[in-house]
């Protein structure tokens, strides 16, 4: 839902960085997006294309790397994927904050990223 505003910020930051360096053209932008964000990658790509139109980033390649979500347990030290609850009533397994090893409550350690990793530009 908020791909437009996030992508606007991405483009704004990319253009600001390019301006600082007097770039003539932006050729590539690399993003890392966590799987636990609510950002739809197709929508990010589409809005990126729309927002960059008429700027020096128009036509640049957008490369998105996805980051898996994982959790950390402060009780037993587990670090890894979610424990899923597989209740036939739910039709699909539901992710939970229960530690797969010791059943304590875990916290989310990765998967919420939305990072501009690098930008390639012609100066």
């Amino acid at each position, binding site marked *: *839902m*908020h791909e437009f*505003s*996030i992508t606007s*910020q*991405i483009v*704004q*930051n990319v253009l*600001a*960085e390019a301006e600082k*360096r007097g*770039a003539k053209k932006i*050729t590539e932008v690399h993003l890392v997006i966590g799987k*636990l*964000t*609510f950002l739809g990658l197709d929508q990010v790509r589409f809005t990126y294309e729309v927002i960059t139109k008429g700027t020096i980033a128009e036509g640049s390649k957008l490369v998105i790397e996805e980051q898996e979500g994982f959790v950390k347990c402060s009780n037993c030290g587990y670090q890894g994927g979610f424990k899923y*609850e597989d*209740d036939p009533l*739910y039709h699909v397994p*539901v*992710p*939970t*904050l*229960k530690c797969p090893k010791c059943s304590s*409550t875990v916290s*989310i350690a990765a998967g*919420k*990223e*939305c*990072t*501009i*990793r*690098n*930008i*390639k*530009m*012609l*100066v």
Partner: protein
Amino acid sequence: MAALKKVVVKAEEGEIYDIELAEDLLKANQRLAEENKRLLHENGAKAIDIMGAIGSGKTSLIEKLVQLLKNHYRIAVFKGDLTTTIDAELIARHGVETVAINTGKECHLDANLVKKALQKLNLKRINVLLIENVGNLICPAEFPLGSDKRVVVVSVTEGPYMIVKHPFIFMEADVVAINKIDLAEPMGVDVKKLEKDVKTINPRATVVATNGRTGEGVEAVAKALGL
């Protein structure tokens, strides 16, 4: 937006420069949220973020919380909506300071909007800030505002699968209010099952069954919030 954190600048073949950045755009919101929280704490106030779907009963619950608590705390309310001040006026008639935050097109409040709204308040005059987020079970999860606790309101009229279909927002919740329990029977929805769904996804959340029209369960919500 906070300034970009530059890590490395290196030249590549020909005239192409590869600029490495490490700015997380969602973290930029988190940083602003932490600033909001610090500002509130410095002024001796705590904030509660109230999330939930459209029509889940967030405003009614806030009205009941305000009625219950207004003689014990100096309360202000931020009311997030795309447009209109209808709900903000509903809350303001209880005699608490209310700021309507109209997001225009955005489906959630963010820390920057809350920061701007905080500038409209005399923080010295309040000690509890209730923030009603835009009705949505998806995006608000991603945007912390600087609150001390987060509440998710889910009503039985949303059907039996609302919680398992939106696990990530329930992972963010400190308190979950299962609302409109008077309608559970006609809806054929089992409140106990909804409660179990929350506890399965997020064992540390406190679950309270509520009726925002009569005020049933509202004291338990306040207690779970430490108010």
